[in-house]
């Protein structure tokens, strides 16, 4: 999983870095940014989803693991 903050939508409410400081950080204006490449280790998946669910602007984007997504989409 990866996380990403859509800078067109972000208004600096700060919910993402308050709820998941391991994954997000503010810039000098208070806008949220994913740390490093936005990679989400397994133990932080729940926090990533919580951050996304609490963003008033729906600016936190979750990118599910592509391999898993593809597997899930394919009939077994």
């Amino acid at each position: 999983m990866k996380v990403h903050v859509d800078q067109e939508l972000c208004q600096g409410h700060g919910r993402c870095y308050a709820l998941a400081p391991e994954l997000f950080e503010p810039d000098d204006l208070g806008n949220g940014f994913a740390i490093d490449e936005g990679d989400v280790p397994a133990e932080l998946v729940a926090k990533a989803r919580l951050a996304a669910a609490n963003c008033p602007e729906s600016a936190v984007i979750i990118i599910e693991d592509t391999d898993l997504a593809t597997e899930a989409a394919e009939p077994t």
Partner: protein
Amino acid sequence: MGLHDPVTDWASDFDHTDDAWVADPFPIWDELRETCPVAHSERYHGVWLPTRHEDIAEIAHDTKRFTSRQVIVSEYRAPLDMAPQGTAPPITSDPPYHQGARRMLLPAFSPQAVARLEPFTRQACQDLVDQLEGNDVVDAAEGYAQHIPVQVIAHMLGLPASDGDRFRGFVNVVLEGVDAAREDREAGIVEFFRYLKDLIEDRMRRPGDDLVSYLLDVDLDGEKVDPFWVTRMIGLLMIAGIDTTWSAIGASIWHLANVPDDRERLIAQPDLLPTAIEELLRSYAPVTMARLVREDFEFNGCAMKQDDFVLLPFPAANRDPAAFDRADEVIIDREVNRHAAFGLGIHRCVGSHLARMELRVALEVWLDAFPDFSLADARAVRWSGGQVRGPRELPLKIETRSERY
């Protein structure tokens, strides 16, 4: 209160200064949301009231059809030539001017800058509870909540705490005086701007390490900002930062006085406080903003006219069952809470990080000093009218700690 006739029909003749609204607006919004989700009133020369989260969010994000030229509903309209800045930038500014003015302010209100103000805030709160200690009945609005944002903003502006009473007078005139006689309100506003002008002139002569000096020195598009607009920005910070935070702190303490289970849980689980604060902000969001309609157009079947006001009751959005599970219940461990207490879109409250810090510290210090309290007289609680809602009188009975030892 006020000069207006009492409201009998909320769908076609509402008034946000009416006694019933001031006492308890939630049933009014809940009913309108079901029966007339965008209400209209001819009062104030035309004003609309959406109550669904979806509509409020759409209008808040639509800076093309709705202008922020005036954000406080009154009988009057700010002249068109006040655009693009408006009377108090950036809250009254539209794009593209808005962005630059906002970027000037944001670094002073970033989470990093706010963290540096926390020790001052905590000491201010501690001094206030020390003064209240020993009384059986204290007013948490007058004696505690109202002083906290006043002292913090005075500290940021490099002003003595003793100017606090004057600030509160100015705030009262601008925000709560919308239904006062026009001459009284105007005289108050003139006095406010004279105070601000003296402050700006003083800092131009003798710059210091404060927010006024910073704003006078910062570049906007490669130029210094005209001191006239700095005056207006400082005015905004005083007006917007005081009543609102005072209301949020007061409403939160009111809730904890009413619901002992929540109070006891927060004392037992202090780690829950940040989550609880979001729910208290959702449930008792103090601020209702407003926009003006830029040109005649139809919004969801409503024929809106140029210069009609549109109220944006964020507290009503926060109680919309279409947006929140069990919207009418206060659930202090609510984890998913996409509330709109600080607005939505480009005008998200510049001071939201500061407000959250003040609210958290105010509650931490209060609960530590007074773990057991209740309403002294529920009928004596008085809420403010207009666009900022919070308790203005909140007498609480304080249980002494001696029983606990």
